[in-house]
Protein backbone atom coordinates (compact mmCIF):
# COMPACT_ATOMS: atom_id res chain seq x y z
CA UNK A 1 0.00 0.00 0.00
CA UNK A 2 2.65 2.48 1.00
CA UNK A 3 4.63 1.37 -2.04
CA UNK A 4 1.65 2.12 -4.23
CA UNK A 5 1.36 5.61 -2.77
CA UNK A 6 5.06 6.19 -3.33
CA UNK A 7 5.09 5.04 -6.95
CA UNK A 8 1.67 6.22 -8.03
CA UNK A 9 1.20 9.13 -5.61
CA UNK A 10 0.86 11.84 -8.27
CA UNK A 11 -1.70 9.78 -10.19
CA UNK A 12 -3.71 9.24 -7.02
CA UNK A 13 -3.49 12.97 -6.28
CA UNK A 14 -4.81 13.75 -9.75
CA UNK A 15 -7.70 11.32 -9.33
CA UNK A 16 -8.44 12.78 -5.91
CA UNK A 17 -8.51 16.32 -7.29
CA UNK A 18 -10.84 15.37 -10.11
CA UNK A 19 -13.21 13.62 -7.69
CA UNK A 20 -13.22 16.51 -5.21
CA UNK A 21 -13.79 19.19 -7.84
CA UNK A 22 -16.53 17.10 -9.48
CA UNK A 23 -18.33 16.92 -6.17
CA UNK A 24 -18.00 20.60 -5.29
CA UNK A 25 -18.59 22.07 -8.72
CA UNK A 26 -21.30 21.08 -11.14
CA UNK A 27 -19.51 22.44 -14.16
CA UNK A 28 -16.15 20.79 -13.52
CA UNK A 29 -17.08 17.32 -14.73
CA UNK A 30 -18.50 18.38 -18.08
CA UNK A 31 -17.14 17.51 -21.50
CA UNK A 32 -16.70 21.18 -22.29
CA UNK A 33 -14.63 21.71 -19.16
CA UNK A 34 -12.47 18.65 -19.80
CA UNK A 35 -11.76 20.02 -23.24
CA UNK A 36 -10.87 23.33 -21.64
CA UNK A 37 -8.48 21.56 -19.26
CA UNK A 38 -6.77 19.78 -22.16
CA UNK A 39 -6.47 23.02 -24.13
CA UNK A 40 -4.96 24.74 -21.13
CA UNK A 41 -2.59 21.83 -20.51
CA UNK A 42 -1.25 21.57 -24.06
CA UNK A 43 1.37 24.30 -24.13
CA UNK A 44 2.60 23.73 -20.55
CA UNK A 45 2.92 20.05 -21.48
CA UNK A 46 5.17 20.86 -24.43
CA UNK A 47 7.38 23.02 -22.24
CA UNK A 48 7.43 20.31 -19.55
CA UNK A 49 8.52 17.70 -22.09
CA UNK A 50 11.59 19.75 -22.94
CA UNK A 51 12.32 20.53 -19.32
CA UNK A 52 11.95 16.91 -18.22
CA UNK A 53 15.07 15.66 -20.02
CA UNK A 54 17.07 18.53 -18.57
CA UNK A 55 15.80 17.89 -15.04
CA UNK A 56 16.39 14.14 -15.34
CA UNK A 57 20.02 14.97 -16.02
CA UNK A 58 20.05 17.03 -12.78
CA UNK A 59 20.49 20.33 -14.61
CA UNK A 60 17.94 23.13 -14.81
CA UNK A 61 16.79 25.47 -17.54
CA UNK A 62 15.22 28.82 -16.69
CA UNK A 63 15.25 30.24 -20.22
CA UNK A 64 11.73 29.03 -21.15
CA UNK A 65 9.95 32.36 -21.16
CA UNK A 66 12.60 34.19 -23.14
CA UNK A 67 12.98 31.47 -25.76
CA UNK A 68 9.21 31.11 -26.24
CA UNK A 69 8.79 34.88 -26.59
CA UNK A 70 11.69 35.08 -29.02
CA UNK A 71 10.24 32.22 -31.06
CA UNK A 72 6.89 33.93 -31.11
CA UNK A 73 8.38 37.18 -32.40
CA UNK A 74 10.56 35.50 -35.03
CA UNK A 75 7.52 33.58 -36.26
CA UNK A 76 5.27 36.62 -36.41
CA UNK A 77 7.69 38.74 -38.44
CA UNK A 78 8.70 36.04 -40.92
CA UNK A 79 5.25 34.73 -41.90
CA UNK A 80 2.60 36.85 -43.55
CA UNK A 81 1.79 39.56 -41.02
CA UNK A 82 0.37 43.03 -40.70
CA UNK A 83 3.65 44.86 -40.11
CA UNK A 84 6.63 43.47 -42.02
CA UNK A 85 6.74 42.54 -45.67
CA UNK A 86 8.73 39.35 -45.13
CA UNK A 87 6.78 36.18 -45.84
CA UNK A 88 8.61 32.88 -45.97
CA UNK A 89 5.44 30.89 -45.39
CA UNK A 90 5.67 27.69 -43.37
CA UNK A 91 9.47 27.73 -43.64
CA UNK A 92 9.20 29.97 -40.62
CA UNK A 93 8.45 26.92 -38.49
CA UNK A 94 11.75 25.08 -39.08
CA UNK A 95 13.53 28.42 -38.78
CA UNK A 96 12.01 29.11 -35.36
CA UNK A 97 12.60 25.56 -34.13
CA UNK A 98 16.25 25.78 -35.18
CA UNK A 99 16.58 29.05 -33.29
CA UNK A 100 15.26 27.29 -30.19
CA UNK A 101 17.63 24.36 -30.63
CA UNK A 102 20.52 26.75 -31.06
CA UNK A 103 19.73 28.72 -27.89
CA UNK A 104 19.47 25.47 -25.89
CA UNK A 105 22.68 24.05 -27.30
CA UNK A 106 24.46 27.31 -26.52
CA UNK A 107 23.32 27.23 -22.90
CA UNK A 108 24.57 23.67 -22.51
CA UNK A 109 27.87 24.37 -24.23
CA UNK A 110 28.54 27.42 -22.05
CA UNK A 111 27.63 25.49 -18.92
CA UNK A 112 29.84 22.54 -19.83
CA UNK A 113 32.87 24.20 -21.33
CA UNK A 114 33.03 27.37 -19.22
CA UNK A 115 32.10 25.24 -16.19
CA UNK A 116 29.21 27.33 -14.89
CA UNK A 117 26.05 26.06 -13.19
CA UNK A 118 23.17 25.70 -15.65
CA UNK A 119 21.01 27.74 -13.25
CA UNK A 120 23.09 30.86 -13.91
CA UNK A 121 23.75 30.22 -17.58
CA UNK A 122 20.07 29.81 -18.35
CA UNK A 123 19.18 32.79 -16.16
CA UNK A 124 21.49 34.83 -18.37
CA UNK A 125 20.04 33.20 -21.45
CA UNK A 126 16.53 34.03 -20.25
CA UNK A 127 17.43 37.72 -20.12
CA UNK A 128 19.32 37.62 -23.38
CA UNK A 129 16.45 36.04 -25.29
CA UNK A 130 13.88 38.39 -23.74
CA UNK A 131 16.03 41.28 -24.91
CA UNK A 132 16.50 39.79 -28.38
CA UNK A 133 12.74 39.42 -28.71
CA UNK A 134 12.39 43.10 -27.84
CA UNK A 135 15.06 44.08 -30.36
CA UNK A 136 13.36 42.10 -33.12
CA UNK A 137 9.95 43.50 -32.25
CA UNK A 138 8.70 45.79 -35.05
CA UNK A 139 7.05 49.12 -34.26
CA UNK A 140 3.53 47.77 -33.98
CA UNK A 141 2.04 44.50 -32.78
CA UNK A 142 2.24 42.18 -35.83
CA UNK A 143 -1.00 40.32 -36.54
CA UNK A 144 -0.45 36.82 -37.89
CA UNK A 145 -2.03 36.60 -41.32
CA UNK A 146 -0.79 33.07 -42.04
CA UNK A 147 -4.01 31.10 -41.64
CA UNK A 148 -2.30 27.73 -41.81
CA UNK A 149 -0.81 28.61 -38.40
CA UNK A 150 -3.73 30.39 -36.79
CA UNK A 151 -6.06 27.58 -37.82
CA UNK A 152 -4.12 25.29 -35.46
CA UNK A 153 -5.91 27.00 -32.60
CA UNK A 154 -9.21 27.75 -34.26
CA UNK A 155 -10.01 24.63 -36.24
CA UNK A 156 -11.51 22.01 -33.92
CA UNK A 157 -11.84 18.25 -34.39
CA UNK A 158 -14.11 16.50 -31.88
CA UNK A 159 -14.10 19.65 -29.76
CA UNK A 160 -10.30 19.89 -29.51
CA UNK A 161 -7.94 22.12 -31.44
CA UNK A 162 -4.97 20.85 -33.47
CA UNK A 163 -2.74 22.18 -30.69
CA UNK A 164 -4.00 19.43 -28.41
CA UNK A 165 -3.51 16.72 -31.04
CA UNK A 166 -0.05 18.01 -31.82
CA UNK A 167 0.80 17.91 -28.12
CA UNK A 168 -0.48 14.35 -27.79
CA UNK A 169 1.65 13.30 -30.74
CA UNK A 170 4.68 14.98 -29.21
CA UNK A 171 4.06 13.21 -25.90
CA UNK A 172 4.05 9.86 -27.70
CA UNK A 173 7.32 10.70 -29.44
CA UNK A 174 8.84 11.84 -26.17
CA UNK A 175 7.77 8.63 -24.44
CA UNK A 176 9.33 6.63 -27.26
CA UNK A 177 12.57 8.64 -27.01
CA UNK A 178 12.65 8.05 -23.29
CA UNK A 179 12.27 4.30 -23.62
CA UNK A 180 13.96 3.38 -26.89
CA UNK A 181 16.87 5.72 -27.46
CA UNK A 182 20.28 5.80 -25.89
CA UNK A 183 19.78 9.52 -25.25
CA UNK A 184 16.55 8.91 -23.36
CA UNK A 185 17.93 6.08 -21.26
CA UNK A 186 21.18 7.84 -20.48
CA UNK A 187 19.49 11.10 -19.48
CA UNK A 188 18.11 9.64 -16.28
CA UNK A 189 21.34 7.75 -15.65
CA UNK A 190 23.35 10.99 -15.93
CA UNK A 191 21.22 12.55 -13.23
CA UNK A 192 21.64 9.55 -10.98
CA UNK A 193 25.37 8.97 -11.25
CA UNK A 194 27.36 10.99 -13.74
CA UNK A 195 30.86 9.88 -12.61
CA UNK A 196 30.13 6.20 -13.25
CA UNK A 197 28.89 6.99 -16.74
CA UNK A 198 31.98 9.04 -17.52
CA UNK A 199 34.16 6.17 -16.32
CA UNK A 200 32.17 3.77 -18.49
CA UNK A 201 33.07 5.82 -21.54
CA UNK A 202 29.61 7.33 -22.13
CA UNK A 203 29.80 10.68 -23.92
CA UNK A 204 27.89 12.55 -21.25
CA UNK A 205 28.44 16.03 -22.65
CA UNK A 206 26.77 15.12 -25.94
CA UNK A 207 23.67 13.94 -24.11
CA UNK A 208 23.62 17.14 -22.06
CA UNK A 209 23.85 19.34 -25.12
CA UNK A 210 21.13 17.27 -26.78
CA UNK A 211 18.82 17.66 -23.78
CA UNK A 212 19.17 21.44 -23.65
CA UNK A 213 18.82 21.71 -27.42
CA UNK A 214 15.65 19.60 -27.39
CA UNK A 215 14.34 21.69 -24.52
CA UNK A 216 15.03 24.85 -26.53
CA UNK A 217 13.19 23.30 -29.48
CA UNK A 218 10.18 22.53 -27.29
CA UNK A 219 10.08 26.10 -25.94
CA UNK A 220 10.23 27.40 -29.51
CA UNK A 221 7.34 25.12 -30.47
CA UNK A 222 5.43 26.48 -27.49
CA UNK A 223 6.16 30.00 -28.81
CA UNK A 224 4.77 29.05 -32.23
CA UNK A 225 1.60 27.59 -30.75
CA UNK A 226 1.17 30.64 -28.51
CA UNK A 227 1.35 32.70 -31.69
CA UNK A 228 -1.31 30.51 -33.26
CA UNK A 229 -3.50 30.94 -30.22
CA UNK A 230 -3.21 34.69 -29.61
CA UNK A 231 -2.80 35.57 -33.29
CA UNK A 232 -0.16 38.27 -32.71
CA UNK A 233 3.54 38.50 -32.05
CA UNK A 234 4.10 39.74 -28.52
CA UNK A 235 7.35 40.09 -26.57
CA UNK A 236 5.51 39.06 -23.41
CA UNK A 237 3.91 35.95 -24.90
CA UNK A 238 6.17 33.50 -23.09
CA UNK A 239 5.70 35.11 -19.68
CA UNK A 240 4.17 32.73 -17.18
CA UNK A 241 5.45 29.50 -18.74
CA UNK A 242 8.38 28.82 -16.43
CA UNK A 243 6.56 28.47 -13.14
CA UNK A 244 3.94 25.93 -14.13
CA UNK A 245 6.47 23.88 -16.07
CA UNK A 246 8.85 23.47 -13.15
CA UNK A 247 5.99 22.95 -10.73
CA UNK A 248 4.43 20.33 -12.99
CA UNK A 249 7.62 18.34 -13.40
CA UNK A 250 8.29 18.31 -9.69
CA UNK A 251 4.67 17.52 -8.82
CA UNK A 252 4.75 14.55 -11.15
CA UNK A 253 7.95 13.19 -9.65
CA UNK A 254 10.69 14.50 -11.94
CA UNK A 255 12.82 15.87 -9.16
CA UNK A 256 15.25 18.76 -9.41
CA UNK A 257 17.94 16.50 -7.98
CA UNK A 258 17.88 14.41 -11.15
CA UNK A 259 17.83 10.73 -11.91
CA UNK A 260 14.11 10.34 -11.34
CA UNK A 261 10.79 10.77 -13.03
CA UNK A 262 10.17 10.96 -16.72
CA UNK A 263 7.76 12.15 -19.37
CA UNK A 264 4.80 10.18 -18.00
CA UNK A 265 5.30 11.62 -14.53
CA UNK A 266 5.74 15.17 -15.80
CA UNK A 267 2.56 14.91 -17.89
CA UNK A 268 0.61 13.80 -14.83
CA UNK A 269 2.11 16.80 -13.05
CA UNK A 270 0.87 19.11 -15.80
CA UNK A 271 -2.62 17.68 -15.51
CA UNK A 272 -2.59 18.06 -11.72
CA UNK A 273 -1.58 21.69 -11.99
CA UNK A 274 -4.03 22.58 -14.75
CA UNK A 275 -6.91 20.76 -13.03
CA UNK A 276 -6.05 22.53 -9.81
CA UNK A 277 -6.16 25.94 -11.51
CA UNK A 278 -9.32 25.14 -13.38
CA UNK A 279 -11.07 23.54 -10.41
CA UNK A 280 -10.23 26.33 -8.01
CA UNK A 281 -11.71 28.88 -10.40
CA UNK A 282 -14.77 26.63 -10.81
CA UNK A 283 -15.34 26.58 -7.07
CA UNK A 284 -14.88 30.33 -6.89
CA UNK A 285 -11.27 31.11 -5.90
CA UNK A 286 -10.00 34.43 -7.27
CA UNK A 287 -7.87 33.82 -10.40
CA UNK A 288 -5.58 36.64 -9.29
CA UNK A 289 -4.36 34.33 -6.54
CA UNK A 290 -3.21 31.81 -9.12
CA UNK A 291 0.51 32.58 -8.97
CA UNK A 292 0.44 32.52 -5.17
CA UNK A 293 -1.10 29.08 -5.31
CA UNK A 294 1.45 27.84 -7.81
CA UNK A 295 4.28 29.23 -5.73
CA UNK A 296 3.04 27.42 -2.65
CA UNK A 297 2.57 24.24 -4.66
CA UNK A 298 6.19 24.37 -5.91
CA UNK A 299 7.58 24.68 -2.40
CA UNK A 300 5.34 21.99 -0.97
CA UNK A 301 5.97 19.62 -3.87
CA UNK A 302 9.76 19.97 -3.75
CA UNK A 303 9.84 19.74 0.03
CA UNK A 304 7.53 16.74 0.11
CA UNK A 305 9.27 14.82 -2.64
CA UNK A 306 12.73 15.26 -1.15
CA UNK A 307 11.74 14.91 2.51
CA UNK A 308 13.29 11.43 2.74
CA UNK A 309 16.62 12.76 1.45
CA UNK A 310 17.05 15.08 4.42
CA UNK A 311 20.44 14.58 6.10
CA UNK A 312 22.26 16.66 8.65
CA UNK A 313 25.46 16.67 6.68
CA UNK A 314 24.13 17.95 3.39
CA UNK A 315 24.87 21.13 1.50
CA UNK A 316 21.77 23.09 0.52
CA UNK A 317 22.40 26.14 -1.58
Amino acid at each position, binding site marked *: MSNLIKSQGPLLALTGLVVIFSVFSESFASMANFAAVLEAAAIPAIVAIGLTYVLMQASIDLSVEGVASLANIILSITVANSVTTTDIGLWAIPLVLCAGLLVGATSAAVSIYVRM*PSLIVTL*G*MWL*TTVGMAA*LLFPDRLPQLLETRITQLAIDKQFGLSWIVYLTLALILVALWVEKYTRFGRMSRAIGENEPVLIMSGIKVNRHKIAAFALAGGCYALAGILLGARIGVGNTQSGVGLL*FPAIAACVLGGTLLSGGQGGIRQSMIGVLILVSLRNGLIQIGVDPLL*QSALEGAVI*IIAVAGSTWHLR*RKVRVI*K
Partner: protein
Amino acid sequence: MTKDTILMFLRRNGALVVLAIILTAVSTAAPGILRWRAINSLLQDNAPLLIMIVGATLPILLGCLDLSIAAMASLAAVMAAMLSPALGSASAYVVVAGAAMIGGLQGWMIGRLQVPSFVISLGALGIFKGIGMYLTAADMVGIAPGISVYETLGSRSFGISNAFILVLIVAWLFTLMLKLSNLGRNIYAFGANEIAVYISGVRRDMVRAFAFAASSGCAALGGVMMISQTMFASATVANSLLLPALVGVVVGGTAISGGVGGVLSSLIGGLIAILIRVGVTISGLPPESQDVAFGITILIAVALTTDRAKIGLVK
Protein backbone atom coordinates in the same frame (compact mmCIF):
# COMPACT_ATOMS: atom_id res chain seq x y z
CA MET B 1 51.80 38.79 -15.79
CA THR B 2 50.59 35.24 -15.83
CA LYS B 3 47.04 34.29 -16.62
CA ASP B 4 46.36 33.63 -12.94
CA THR B 5 47.51 37.02 -11.72
CA ILE B 6 45.48 38.75 -14.42
CA LEU B 7 42.42 36.79 -13.39
CA MET B 8 43.15 37.59 -9.75
CA PHE B 9 43.45 41.29 -10.57
CA LEU B 10 40.20 41.20 -12.52
CA ARG B 11 38.44 39.47 -9.63
CA ARG B 12 39.70 42.03 -7.15
CA ASN B 13 39.34 45.24 -9.14
CA GLY B 14 37.42 44.21 -12.21
CA ALA B 15 34.27 46.01 -11.14
CA LEU B 16 36.05 49.34 -10.71
CA VAL B 17 37.75 48.97 -14.09
CA VAL B 18 34.45 48.15 -15.77
CA LEU B 19 32.77 51.08 -14.00
CA ALA B 20 35.45 53.45 -15.28
CA ILE B 21 35.17 52.14 -18.83
CA ILE B 22 31.40 52.36 -18.95
CA LEU B 23 31.39 55.76 -17.30
CA THR B 24 33.85 57.04 -19.89
CA ALA B 25 31.82 55.56 -22.73
CA VAL B 26 28.50 56.90 -21.46
CA SER B 27 29.83 60.37 -20.68
CA THR B 28 31.47 60.63 -24.08
CA ALA B 29 28.17 59.80 -25.73
CA ALA B 30 26.17 62.11 -23.48
CA PRO B 31 28.39 64.65 -21.68
CA GLY B 32 25.40 65.99 -19.76
CA ILE B 33 25.35 62.90 -17.60
CA LEU B 34 28.32 64.07 -15.56
CA ARG B 35 26.51 67.12 -14.23
CA TRP B 36 25.69 66.97 -10.57
CA ARG B 37 21.97 67.36 -11.17
CA ALA B 38 21.90 64.48 -13.59
CA ILE B 39 23.89 62.25 -11.25
CA ASN B 40 21.73 63.18 -8.30
CA SER B 41 18.48 62.42 -10.05
CA LEU B 42 19.95 59.19 -11.40
CA LEU B 43 20.88 58.14 -7.85
CA GLN B 44 17.46 59.12 -6.56
CA ASP B 45 15.65 57.19 -9.28
CA ASN B 46 17.81 54.16 -8.72
CA ALA B 47 17.94 54.17 -4.93
CA PRO B 48 15.35 51.33 -4.80
CA LEU B 49 17.52 49.19 -7.08
CA LEU B 50 20.65 49.99 -5.06
CA ILE B 51 19.08 49.10 -1.72
CA MET B 52 17.88 45.81 -3.20
CA ILE B 53 21.40 45.10 -4.42
CA VAL B 54 22.77 45.78 -0.95
CA GLY B 55 20.33 43.29 0.57
CA ALA B 56 20.65 40.66 -2.13
CA THR B 57 24.40 40.49 -1.47
CA LEU B 58 23.94 38.62 1.80
CA PRO B 59 22.27 35.43 0.51
CA ILE B 60 24.74 35.35 -2.37
CA LEU B 61 27.62 35.56 0.09
CA LEU B 62 26.25 32.31 1.52
CA GLY B 63 26.12 30.78 -1.94
CA CYS B 64 22.31 31.01 -1.96
CA LEU B 65 20.04 32.95 -4.28
CA ASP B 66 16.98 35.04 -3.36
CA LEU B 67 14.75 35.33 -6.42
CA SER B 68 11.85 36.80 -4.46
CA ILE B 69 13.26 40.28 -3.86
CA ALA B 70 11.53 42.10 -6.70
CA ALA B 71 8.17 40.51 -5.89
CA MET B 72 8.73 41.43 -2.24
CA ALA B 73 9.48 45.04 -3.19
CA SER B 74 6.24 45.22 -5.20
CA LEU B 75 4.22 43.63 -2.43
CA ALA B 76 5.80 45.97 0.12
CA ALA B 77 4.94 48.98 -2.02
CA VAL B 78 1.35 47.77 -2.25
CA MET B 79 1.09 47.03 1.46
CA ALA B 80 2.65 50.36 2.44
CA ALA B 81 0.21 52.23 0.22
CA MET B 82 -2.77 50.32 1.55
CA LEU B 83 -1.73 50.72 5.18
CA SER B 84 -0.73 54.37 4.86
CA PRO B 85 -4.18 55.89 5.50
CA ALA B 86 -4.56 53.95 8.74
CA LEU B 87 -1.00 53.84 10.06
CA GLY B 88 0.65 56.91 8.59
CA SER B 89 4.42 56.80 8.87
CA ALA B 90 4.26 53.57 10.81
CA SER B 91 3.08 51.81 7.66
CA ALA B 92 6.62 51.98 6.26
CA TYR B 93 8.20 50.55 9.40
CA VAL B 94 5.60 47.82 9.73
CA VAL B 95 6.06 46.75 6.12
CA VAL B 96 9.85 46.62 6.32
CA ALA B 97 9.81 44.73 9.61
CA GLY B 98 7.19 42.31 8.35
CA ALA B 99 9.18 41.70 5.16
CA ALA B 100 12.30 40.99 7.20
CA MET B 101 10.38 38.43 9.23
CA ILE B 102 9.01 36.75 6.12
CA GLY B 103 12.49 36.71 4.62
CA GLY B 104 13.86 35.18 7.80
CA LEU B 105 11.21 32.50 7.60
CA GLN B 106 12.27 31.76 4.02
CA GLY B 107 15.89 31.40 5.03
CA TRP B 108 15.02 29.20 7.97
CA MET B 109 12.83 26.98 5.79
CA ILE B 110 15.67 26.37 3.32
CA GLY B 111 17.62 24.61 6.04
CA ARG B 112 14.68 22.94 7.77
CA LEU B 113 12.99 21.60 4.64
CA GLN B 114 16.35 21.18 2.88
CA VAL B 115 14.96 22.69 -0.28
CA PRO B 116 17.38 24.73 -2.42
CA SER B 117 17.09 28.50 -1.94
CA PHE B 118 16.19 29.16 -5.54
CA VAL B 119 13.15 26.85 -5.24
CA ILE B 120 11.94 28.41 -1.99
CA SER B 121 12.45 31.92 -3.28
CA LEU B 122 10.93 31.11 -6.67
CA GLY B 123 7.88 29.80 -4.83
CA ALA B 124 7.90 32.89 -2.62
CA LEU B 125 8.07 35.06 -5.73
CA GLY B 126 4.82 33.49 -6.93
CA ILE B 127 3.18 33.82 -3.53
CA PHE B 128 4.10 37.51 -3.14
CA LYS B 129 2.98 38.29 -6.66
CA GLY B 130 -0.33 36.48 -6.21
CA ILE B 131 -1.07 38.20 -2.91
CA GLY B 132 -0.18 41.58 -4.42
CA MET B 133 -2.46 40.99 -7.40
CA TYR B 134 -5.27 39.87 -5.14
CA LEU B 135 -4.97 42.81 -2.76
CA THR B 136 -4.91 45.38 -5.53
CA ALA B 137 -7.29 43.54 -7.86
CA ALA B 138 -4.52 44.01 -10.46
CA ASP B 139 -4.90 47.78 -10.25
CA MET B 140 -2.91 50.76 -8.99
CA VAL B 141 -3.18 51.86 -5.37
CA GLY B 142 -2.29 55.37 -4.29
CA ILE B 143 -0.61 56.41 -1.07
CA ALA B 144 -2.23 58.75 1.42
CA PRO B 145 -0.79 62.26 0.98
CA GLY B 146 1.26 64.16 3.53
CA ILE B 147 2.88 61.29 5.41
CA SER B 148 6.25 62.37 6.72
CA VAL B 149 8.28 59.19 6.07
CA TYR B 150 7.41 59.10 2.40
CA GLU B 151 7.87 62.82 1.96
CA THR B 152 11.31 62.66 3.57
CA LEU B 153 12.34 59.71 1.42
CA GLY B 154 11.23 61.54 -1.70
CA SER B 155 13.10 64.76 -0.94
CA ARG B 156 16.71 65.88 -0.47
CA SER B 157 19.05 66.95 2.28
CA PHE B 158 22.08 69.11 1.46
CA GLY B 159 21.11 68.63 -2.17
CA ILE B 160 21.46 64.84 -1.98
CA SER B 161 18.56 62.48 -2.31
CA ASN B 162 17.50 61.19 1.10
CA ALA B 163 16.77 57.78 -0.37
CA PHE B 164 20.34 57.52 -1.60
CA ILE B 165 21.66 58.64 1.79
CA LEU B 166 19.63 55.84 3.34
CA VAL B 167 21.19 53.38 0.88
CA LEU B 168 24.65 54.50 1.97
CA ILE B 169 23.75 54.20 5.65
CA VAL B 170 22.37 50.70 5.26
CA ALA B 171 25.35 49.63 3.15
CA TRP B 172 27.72 51.06 5.75
CA LEU B 173 25.90 49.24 8.58
CA PHE B 174 26.02 45.95 6.70
CA THR B 175 29.69 46.44 5.94
CA LEU B 176 30.42 47.02 9.62
CA MET B 177 28.35 44.00 10.54
CA LEU B 178 30.21 41.80 8.05
CA LYS B 179 33.60 43.03 9.23
CA LEU B 180 33.19 43.33 12.98
CA SER B 181 30.56 40.89 14.16
CA ASN B 182 30.61 37.18 14.76
CA LEU B 183 27.62 36.90 12.44
CA GLY B 184 29.58 38.53 9.62
CA ARG B 185 32.45 36.11 10.15
CA ASN B 186 29.99 33.23 10.05
CA ILE B 187 28.42 34.49 6.82
CA TYR B 188 31.72 34.52 4.93
CA ALA B 189 32.79 31.17 6.37
CA PHE B 190 29.39 29.64 5.57
CA GLY B 191 29.82 30.65 1.94
CA ALA B 192 33.29 29.11 1.86
CA ASN B 193 32.33 25.72 3.34
CA GLU B 194 28.89 25.20 4.84
CA ILE B 195 29.55 21.74 6.29
CA ALA B 196 32.82 22.67 7.98
CA VAL B 197 31.14 25.71 9.49
CA TYR B 198 28.25 23.60 10.78
CA ILE B 199 30.67 21.12 12.33
CA SER B 200 32.47 24.06 13.92
CA GLY B 201 29.28 24.68 15.87
CA VAL B 202 27.79 27.58 13.92
CA ARG B 203 23.98 27.77 13.86
CA ARG B 204 23.64 27.61 10.12
CA ASP B 205 19.86 27.96 10.04
CA MET B 206 20.09 31.23 11.97
CA VAL B 207 22.82 32.57 9.70
CA ARG B 208 20.72 31.76 6.66
CA ALA B 209 17.60 33.21 8.24
CA PHE B 210 19.43 36.47 8.94
CA ALA B 211 20.78 36.75 5.39
CA PHE B 212 17.34 36.26 3.88
CA ALA B 213 15.74 38.58 6.41
CA ALA B 214 18.22 41.25 5.35
CA SER B 215 17.55 40.71 1.68
CA SER B 216 13.76 40.75 2.13
CA GLY B 217 13.88 43.75 4.45
CA CYS B 218 16.02 45.70 2.00
CA ALA B 219 13.71 44.73 -0.85
CA ALA B 220 10.74 46.07 1.13
CA LEU B 221 12.66 49.25 1.82
CA GLY B 222 13.20 49.51 -1.92
CA GLY B 223 9.45 49.19 -2.44
CA VAL B 224 8.81 51.91 0.12
CA MET B 225 11.32 54.17 -1.67
CA MET B 226 9.54 53.53 -4.94
CA ILE B 227 6.15 54.68 -3.71
CA SER B 228 7.70 57.68 -2.01
CA GLN B 229 8.74 58.78 -5.50
CA THR B 230 5.75 57.74 -7.59
CA MET B 231 2.99 57.92 -4.92
CA PHE B 232 1.38 54.93 -6.63
CA ALA B 233 1.99 51.21 -6.34
CA SER B 234 0.94 48.15 -8.28
CA ALA B 235 1.58 44.46 -7.76
CA THR B 236 4.20 44.46 -10.50
CA VAL B 237 5.80 47.84 -9.88
CA ALA B 238 9.27 46.48 -9.01
CA ASN B 239 9.25 43.24 -11.01
CA SER B 240 11.74 44.41 -13.58
CA LEU B 241 14.32 45.04 -10.85
CA LEU B 242 15.15 41.39 -10.04
CA LEU B 243 17.62 40.84 -12.80
CA PRO B 244 19.39 44.23 -12.62
CA ALA B 245 19.77 43.58 -8.88
CA LEU B 246 21.38 40.18 -9.41
CA VAL B 247 23.53 41.66 -12.18
CA GLY B 248 24.68 44.35 -9.79
CA VAL B 249 25.69 41.86 -7.12
CA VAL B 250 27.63 39.50 -9.38
CA VAL B 251 29.19 42.23 -11.50
CA GLY B 252 30.45 43.80 -8.29
CA GLY B 253 32.47 40.66 -7.75
CA THR B 254 30.43 38.78 -5.17
CA ALA B 255 30.85 35.20 -6.34
CA ILE B 256 27.65 33.26 -6.86
CA SER B 257 29.46 30.27 -5.34
CA GLY B 258 29.64 32.10 -2.02
CA GLY B 259 32.24 33.34 0.45
CA VAL B 260 33.73 36.16 -1.63
CA GLY B 261 32.65 39.77 -2.07
CA GLY B 262 30.90 42.41 -0.03
CA VAL B 263 28.23 45.04 0.12
CA LEU B 264 30.43 47.86 -1.15
CA SER B 265 31.53 45.85 -4.19
CA SER B 266 27.87 45.23 -4.89
CA LEU B 267 27.18 48.96 -4.78
CA ILE B 268 29.83 49.46 -7.44
CA GLY B 269 28.20 46.65 -9.41
CA GLY B 270 24.89 48.43 -8.95
CA LEU B 271 26.30 51.61 -10.43
CA ILE B 272 27.47 49.59 -13.41
CA ALA B 273 23.99 48.13 -13.84
CA ILE B 274 22.51 51.65 -13.73
CA LEU B 275 24.99 52.92 -16.31
CA ILE B 276 24.19 49.99 -18.59
CA ARG B 277 20.55 51.07 -18.46
CA VAL B 278 21.46 54.67 -19.15
CA GLY B 279 23.76 53.59 -21.96
CA VAL B 280 21.01 51.59 -23.60
CA THR B 281 18.64 54.54 -23.35
CA ILE B 282 20.98 57.14 -24.85
CA SER B 283 22.03 54.79 -27.63
CA GLY B 284 18.44 54.89 -28.84
CA LEU B 285 17.84 51.14 -28.57
CA PRO B 286 14.48 49.98 -27.23
CA PRO B 287 14.64 49.90 -23.42
CA GLU B 288 13.92 46.16 -23.31
CA SER B 289 17.20 45.47 -25.07
CA GLN B 290 19.00 46.35 -21.86
CA ASP B 291 18.06 42.78 -20.95
CA VAL B 292 20.45 41.46 -23.58
CA ALA B 293 23.20 43.55 -22.04
CA PHE B 294 22.29 42.31 -18.56
CA GLY B 295 22.11 38.68 -19.68
CA ILE B 296 25.52 38.76 -21.27
CA THR B 297 27.04 40.76 -18.41
CA ILE B 298 25.76 38.26 -15.87
CA LEU B 299 27.30 35.37 -17.83
CA ILE B 300 30.70 37.06 -18.13
CA ALA B 301 30.73 38.23 -14.52
CA VAL B 302 29.87 34.78 -13.16
CA ALA B 303 32.36 33.12 -15.49
CA LEU B 304 35.08 35.36 -14.06
CA THR B 305 34.15 35.10 -10.38
CA THR B 306 33.05 31.49 -9.91
CA ASP B 307 35.46 29.35 -7.96
CA ARG B 308 35.46 26.22 -10.09
CA ALA B 309 37.35 24.19 -7.53
CA LYS B 310 34.22 24.30 -5.41
CA ILE B 311 31.77 22.90 -7.91
CA GLY B 312 32.87 19.34 -8.59
CA LEU B 313 30.31 18.36 -11.16
CA VAL B 314 28.81 21.18 -13.15
CA LYS B 315 25.05 20.82 -13.19
